C-alpha cells in the first residue's frame, strides 16, 4: 500500500471507535466466550476452550487455525455475552453518527441535498446541522484574522523610500547590486554571477543593432563589477615584487615605460610567483598613478575580474609580504592626514559614518539616535565591517587596498564613444570670486585657489576639447589616459534622446595641429593626473552629491524653464579618469575595430553619469555583448578563454553542469546522441587529456627521429635559447602558450607562404618549419595549448565545443578543386553504451532493490573496452548519448585526428563568415603543419558536436 493510501485510511478511521475491529483483535473474544470464573476454575481446559472460541469467532480461512472447528461451544455465559454485544452495538451506533469522509458537517448530508451556497449561508442547512456549522464558520473566520496579521504590509508602505531601501539591502545581501542595477533590472535579463547581479542581455531583440552600435556609433556597458586592487609603495619595491608574477617573455610587464609613467593603461597575464609557463592566474589591466613631485610613493591600480580576485589578492599579499591586516580605524587616520594634505576640510566623523556600512539595521539605529536623514548605502555596502580591506607590509612598506565597488567603471565601445563623452561631459567650470574667498566645506573652491592646479585643469580641459574634433576613437594611441574634473552631468541632459555626433568641420581648422599632436603623442604626462586617485576627494565627492530630488527642485526654480542651472552648485564637480581602450590589434582585417573609452567615476555617481550617457543615443550591452565584442576583436575573453587559470577551470565546470542540465531537460527521444556523432566532449573539453595524448605522440616521434635531429639541433640552438625550459620537466599540467616569440614563430608557420591577401606587411626572417625547428619547439612546448582564431572558408556556423581536426591529404585535394567544397563527412559512430544501458534498465526495474549487483552483470555482456567506463560511473550520472568519464582516447576517436576544441563560436558580423575561437595542442598543430603542402598551411577541419559534417577553416594565430 502506498503511503498516501495509508494516510487516507488513517484519516477515515480516525473517528471510528476501536471496538468495531472486534474480530481481528484477540482480547474481546476472551470477554465474549470464556467467562472469568471458568478461566479461574480450570485453567488448562479454559485455555483450550478459549482457543476453540477464538477459532469460532474468526471468519474465513486462518493460517494458524488450519482446520475449521467441528464443534460448537458447549456453553455461553449470558451476562458476558450480552455485555459484549452491547459494546458492539454502542460502537456501531457511534460509527453511524460519525461522518467518515471528512470532518465537515456537509458530509452528514446526503449528496443530493448538498448545495454550494450552504457554506456561505448557514440558514440553508437543515436545523439540526445549523449550530455546528455556525461554530465551524466562526472558527474559520477567526483563523483568517490570524492569517491577515502575517500578510505583508500595504503596497504604499512598501513603496515608501526607507522601507524600499531596507528591502533592497536585504535582497542584495548575497549578490551585490551595481549602482545601475534597477535601471538594468527593468530592461535586462539579470543573472547572478560572481557575487553580483549583472545584466546578461537586454529583453529587446537587439543583437544586430548592438553590433552596429559597436562598429559605427557607441555601445555602453557597466563594468563596475570589476574589482580594483590598489597597491601603494615605493616604485622599485613594487616593481620588484610584481616582477615575480609576470614574465618578460610573455610581453610587456608592469615595468613598461609608458605605462609606468601613467600615460597608458597596460594589461598583463599574471602567474603564480616564479612559475611562469605554468600556473597562470589570469589577466589584469593596470594603471599607474603619474608621479607626483616630492613623493617616492607610487600608486598602482589593478583591475581584476571578480572570479579571480581572491586568487590574485592572495598572491599579491604573499609576494609583497603583506600579512599584517590593517584594521579599519587605521585608514581613517590616514584619510584624515591625506585630507589635510589635499587642502580640503577634514571631516573625520563624516568619513567614519560612511565607512562602516554593515547593513541597514545599524544604520537605522544610528538614524534614530542622531536624526540625520537615511542615506543609501553605496559601494560595497553589504560587506561586513570585519572583513579587512587593507593590508600592510612591515618589511617592504607596501600597502594593498581592496577598492572593490569604490569606483564605477563604464565602458564605451565604438568609434563615436569619444563624441558621446564630449557631449555628455563638460569640464568643470571655475567658481566665482565670492565663493573662492569664503571658506567652504567643498573641495572645489579650495582647489580653485591654487594657481598650479587650475593651470593643470585648464590643460586637461583643452585636451578634452580636442576630442570633439576627432572623427574616430581609433585615431588615438591605444591605452591613453586622461584625467579630468567635470561638472555634474545631470545639469545638461537633453530633453530628448539625441544621437551624439562629432562636429569635425568646426573644430578642424582651429586645432588641427593640436589634434595631430594628440593622435601622435597621446595625452601629455601631467594631464593624466586626476583627483580620482585621492581617497579623501573620492569620499568627499560621494558624500556631498546633490540628491536627485534636490537637483530637480533647483531646476524647477530656474527662471526660464528648461535652461541650464547657473551657476553650477559647488558640490557638482566630479574628478574622473578617461582610459582609452584599443581596438582590434592583431591580424590585418578590421583593424582597430571596437576601440573605445572607459570612464571611471567615484562611487555614488553611477546613475548621475549613466542617464546622461544613455540620453546621447548609445546602446546598452550586457555580458553577452562583451563576449561578442571580444570575439569580433579577436582577443581571449575572461573566464571563457583561460582554461589554465583556476577561475577558468571553475567556469568550465559550471558551464558543463549547466549544459548537461539543459541537455537532460530535453525529452530523451529528442536529445542528440553525441556518441553516434563521434563527439567525446560536448559539454566540457578535456584539455589535460588532449595535451597528454599529444605529448605522448610527440615524444614517440621524437625518439624515432632523435638521431637525425641531434646533429642539427646545435645549429638551431639560437631559436631555442630564449625559451629554455628544463629538459626533464615533469609533465604535469597543461599550459597555454603565451611566450610572444614562440607565438610569433608559430604564427608564421601557420600562414601559407604564397597566397593572395596574406601579404606580410613586414617581411621578417623566421626560421622555416623543418624537422629540427619542430623538434626543438615540441620539447619546449610539448604540454602547451595555443589560442587560435578560426575563420571558415565557405559555409557553416560553428558551435560551442566544436572539434578542430587535422585534414587528411585527400581532404586537402578536395579543397584544391574548388573553394565551395563543403568538406568531408564523418561516418556515423556506433553507440556501444546504448546496448548496455537497455538491458541494465530492464534489470533495474526487475530488481530495483539491488542495484550494485546489477551493474557488473550487464557489463559482462559488453565489449571489454567499454567495461571500464560503465562500471566506474555510478548508475545515476549516466546519461544516454554522452560519454561518461573516463573518456576513450580523444585524439584518435574520429576519422580525422583531433587537435583541439572551440571555446567561443558564432557567425561573425564583422568578417561575414563563421568564426571560432579555441585552443589546439601545440604538438598536434605542428605535427599537422609539417604534413601539409606549403600553399595550404594552416588549413584545418571544424565539426560541430551536433553534426557529422566537417567544414574547412583557416587558422590564425595573432600576436
Amino acid at each position, binding site marked *: 500500500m502506498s503511503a498516501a493510501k495509508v494516510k487516507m485510511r488513517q484519516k477515515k478511521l480516525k473517528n471510528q471507535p476501536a471496538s468495531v475491529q472486534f474480530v481481528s483483535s484477540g482480547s474481546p473474544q476472551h470477554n465474549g466466550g470464556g467467562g472469568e470464573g471458568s478461566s479461574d476454575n480450570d485453567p488448562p481446559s479454559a485455555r483450550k476452550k478459549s482457543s476453540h472460541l477464538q477459532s469460532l469467532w474468526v471468519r474465513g480461512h486462518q493460517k494458524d487455525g488450519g482446520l475449521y472447528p467441528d464443534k460448537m461451544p458447549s456453553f455461553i455465559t449470558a451476562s458476558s455475552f450480552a455485555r459484549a454485544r452491547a459494546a458492539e452495538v454502542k460502537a456501531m451506533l457511534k460509527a453511524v453518527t460519525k461522518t467518515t469522509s471528512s470532518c465537515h458537517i456537509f458530509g452528514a448530508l446526503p449528496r443530493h441535498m448538498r448545495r454550494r451556497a450552504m457554506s456561505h449561508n448557514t440558514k440553508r442547512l437543515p436545523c439540526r446541522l445549523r449550530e455546528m456549522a455556525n461554530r465551524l464558520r466562526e472558527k474559520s473566520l477567526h483563523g483568517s484574522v490570524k492569517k491577515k496579521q502575517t500578510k505583508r504590509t500595504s503596497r504604499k508602505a512598501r513603496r515608501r523610500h526607507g522601507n524600499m531601501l531596507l528591502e533592497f539591502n536585504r535582497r542584495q545581501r548575497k549578490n551585490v547590486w551595481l549602482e545601475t542595477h534597477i535601471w538594468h533590472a527593468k530592461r535586462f535579463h539579470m543573472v547572478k554571477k560572481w557575487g553580483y547581479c549583472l545584466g546578461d542581455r537586454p529583453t529587446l531583440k537587439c543583437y544586430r543593432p548592438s553590433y552596429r552600435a559597436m562598429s559605427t556609433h557607441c555601445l555602453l556597458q557597466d563594468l563596475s563589477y570589476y574589482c580594483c586592487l590598489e597597491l601603494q609603495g615605493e616604485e622599485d619595491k613594487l616593481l620588484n615584487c610584481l616582477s615575480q608574477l609576470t614574465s*618578460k617573455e610573455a610581453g610587456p610587464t608592469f615595468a613598461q*615605460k609608458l605605462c609606468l609613467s601613467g600615460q597608458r593603461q597596460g594589461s598583463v597575464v599574471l602567474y603564480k610567483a616564479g612559475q611562469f609557463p605554468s600556473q597562470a592566474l589570469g589577466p589584469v589591466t593596470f594603471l599607474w598613478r603619474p608621479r607626483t613631485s616630492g613623493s617616492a610613493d607610487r600608486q598602482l591600480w589593478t583591475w581584476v575580474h571578480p572570479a579571480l580576485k581572491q586568487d590574485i589578492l592572495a598572491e599579491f599579499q604573499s609576494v609583497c609580504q603583506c600579512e599584517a591586516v590593517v584594521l579599519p580605524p587605521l585608514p581613517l587616520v590616514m584619510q584624515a592626514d591625506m585630507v589635510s594634505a589635499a587642502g580640503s576640510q577634514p571631516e573625520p566623523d563624516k568619513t567614519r559614518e560612511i565607512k562602516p556600512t554593515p547593513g541597514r539595521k545599524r544604520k537605522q539605529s544610528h538614524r534614530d539616535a542622531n536624526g540625520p536623514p537615511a542615506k543609501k548605502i553605496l559601494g560595497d555596502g553589504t560587506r561586513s565591517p570585519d572583513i579587512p580591506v587593507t593590508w600592510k607590509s612591515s618589511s617592504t612598506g607596501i600597502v594593498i587596498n581592496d577598492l572593490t565597488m569604490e569606483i564605477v567603471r563604464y565602458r564605451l565601445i565604438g568609434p563615436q564613444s569619444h563624441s558621446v563623452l564630449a557631449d555628455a561631459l563638460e569640464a568643470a567650470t571655475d567658481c566665482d570670486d565670492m565663493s573662492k574667498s569664503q571658506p567652504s566645506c567643498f573641495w572645489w573652491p579650495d582647489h580653485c585657489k591654487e594657481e598650479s592646479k587650475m593651470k593643470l585643469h585648464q590643460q586637461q580641459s583643452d585636451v578634452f576639447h580636442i576630442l570633439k574634433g576627432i572623427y574616430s576613437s581609433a585615431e588615438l594611441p591605444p591605452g591613453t589616459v586622461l584625467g579630468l574634473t567635470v561638472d555634474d552631468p545631470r545639469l545638461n541632459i537633453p530633453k530628448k534622446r539625441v544621437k551624439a555626433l*562629432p562636429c569635425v568641420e568646426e573644430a578642424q581648422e582651429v586645432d588641427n595641429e593640436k589634434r595631430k599632436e594628440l593622435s601622435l603623442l597621446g595625452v601629455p604626462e601631467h594631464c593624466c593626473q586626476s583627483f580620482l586617485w585621492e581617497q579623501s576627494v573620492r569620499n568627499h565627492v560621494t558624500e556631498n552629491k546633490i540628491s536627485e530630488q534636490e537637483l530637480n527642485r533647483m531646476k524647477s526654480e530656474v527662471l526660464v524653464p528648461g535652461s541650464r542651472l547657473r551657476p553650477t552648485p559647488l558640490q557638482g564637480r566630479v574628478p574622473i579618469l578617461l582610459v582609452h581602450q584599443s581596438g582590434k*590589434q592583431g591580424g590585418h582585417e578590421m583593424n*582597430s575595430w571596437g576601440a573605445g573609452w572607459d570612464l571611471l567615476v567615484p562611487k555614488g555617481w553611477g546613475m548621475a553619469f549613466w542617464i546622461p550617457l544613455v540620453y546621447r543615443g548609445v546602446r546598452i550591452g550586457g555580458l553577452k555583448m562583451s563576449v561578442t565584442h571580444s570575439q569580433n576583436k579577436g582577443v581571449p575573453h575572461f573566464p571563457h578563454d583561460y582554461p589554465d587559470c583556476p577561475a577558468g577551470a571553475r567556469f568550465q565546470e559550471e558551464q558543463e553542469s549547466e549544459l548537461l542540465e539543459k541537455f537532460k531537460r530535453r525529452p530523451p527521444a529528442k536529445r542528440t546522441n553525441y556518441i553516434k556523432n563521434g563527439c567525446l566532449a560536448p559539454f566540457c573539453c578535456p584539455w589535460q587529456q588532449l595535451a597528454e595524448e599529444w605529448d605522448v605522440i610527440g615524444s614517440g616521434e621524437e625518439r624515432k627521429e632523435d638521431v637525425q635531429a641531434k646533429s642539427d639541433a646545435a645549429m638551431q640552438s639560437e631559436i631555442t635559447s630564449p625559451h629554455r625550459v628544463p629538459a626533464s620537466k615533469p609533465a604535469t599540467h597543461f599550459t597555454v602558450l603565451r611566450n610572444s616569440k614562440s607565438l610569433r614563430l608559430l604564427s608564421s608557420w601557420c600562414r601559407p607562404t604564397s597566397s593572395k591577401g596574406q601579404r606580410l606587411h*613586414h*617581411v621578417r626572417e623566421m626560421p622555416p618549419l623543418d624537422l629540427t625547428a619542430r623538434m626543438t619547439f615540441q620539447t619546449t612546448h610539448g604540454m602547451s595549448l595555443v589560442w587560435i582564431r578560426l575563420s571558415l572558408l565557405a559555409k557553416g556556423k560553428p558551435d560551442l565545443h566544436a572539434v578542430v581536426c587535422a585534414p587528411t591529404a585527400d581532404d586537402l585535394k578536395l579543397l584544391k578543386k574548388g573553394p565551395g567544397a563543403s568538406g568531408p563527412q564523418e561516418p556515423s559512430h556506433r553507440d556501444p553504451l546504448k546496448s548496455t544501458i537497455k538491458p541494465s534498465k530492464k534489470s533495474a526495474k526487475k530488481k530495483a532493490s539491488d542495484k550494485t549487483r546489477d551493474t557488473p552483470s550487464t557489463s559482462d555482456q559488453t565489449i571489454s573496452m567499454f567495461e571500464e567506463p560503465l562500471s566506474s560511473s555510478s548508475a545515476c550520472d549516466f546519461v544516454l548519448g554522452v560519454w561518461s568519464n573516463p573518456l576513450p582516447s580523444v585524439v584518435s576517436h574520429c576519422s580525422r585526428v583531433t587537435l583541439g576544441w572551440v571555446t567561443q563560436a558564432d557567425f561573425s558580423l564583422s568578417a561575414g563568415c563563421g568564426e571560432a575561437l579555441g585552443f589546439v595542442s601545440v604538438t598536434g598543430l605542428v605535427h599537422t603543419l609539417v604534413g601539409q603542402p606549403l600553399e595550404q598551411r594552416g588549413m584545418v577541419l571544424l565539426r560541430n558536436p551536433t553534426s557529422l559534417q566537417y567544414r574547412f577553416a583557416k587558422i590564425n594565430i595573432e600576436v
Partner: protein
Amino acid sequence: MTEIRNPGMSSATLGQSSDSGHCAVDIDPVEYTLRKRLPRKLPKRRNDVYVNMKTDFRAQLARCQKLLDGGGHREICVHGLGLAINRAINIALQLQASSQGALQLAANTSTVELVDDLEPEDPDEAAEPMTRTRNNSAIHIKVFYPDP
C-alpha cells in the same frame, strides 16, 4: 617625408625613409612590431564612395551605378587611397564608358597622413613604443552629369 616621433625622447636613432608606405629602413624589423592605425576618416555623405581592395570590383561598380541611376544623385565622389587609387580610376572610367559619354569626370589628388605605431618586441623593455607618420597618395574623382 616621414616624421618619426618618439614620446618622451627625441627621435635620435631613426632616420628618414621613403614615402612609399614601405616599412622604415633603419628600424630593425626584429625589434619592433608595426601596427598601422586607420586613416583619418571624415564625415561621409551619401554620394561618397570609398573604394577598397577587399570588396569585389563588380560590387563596387554596381554600387556607384546604382547611386547615379536610382539614387537620384547628380554627382558622386569616388575616393581611393594608396593601392586603391588604380581601382578608383578604373571604376570612374567604367562608369563613364557605360554612360555613353553622359558622365564627366573631375579628378583631384591629395596626400593623406597616416600614423603607425611601433611596439618594441625585445623583452628587456629598454626601447620605447614609438609613433610615426608617413604619407600616402589619394585620389578623389567627381563623377557627374554636366548641367544642361
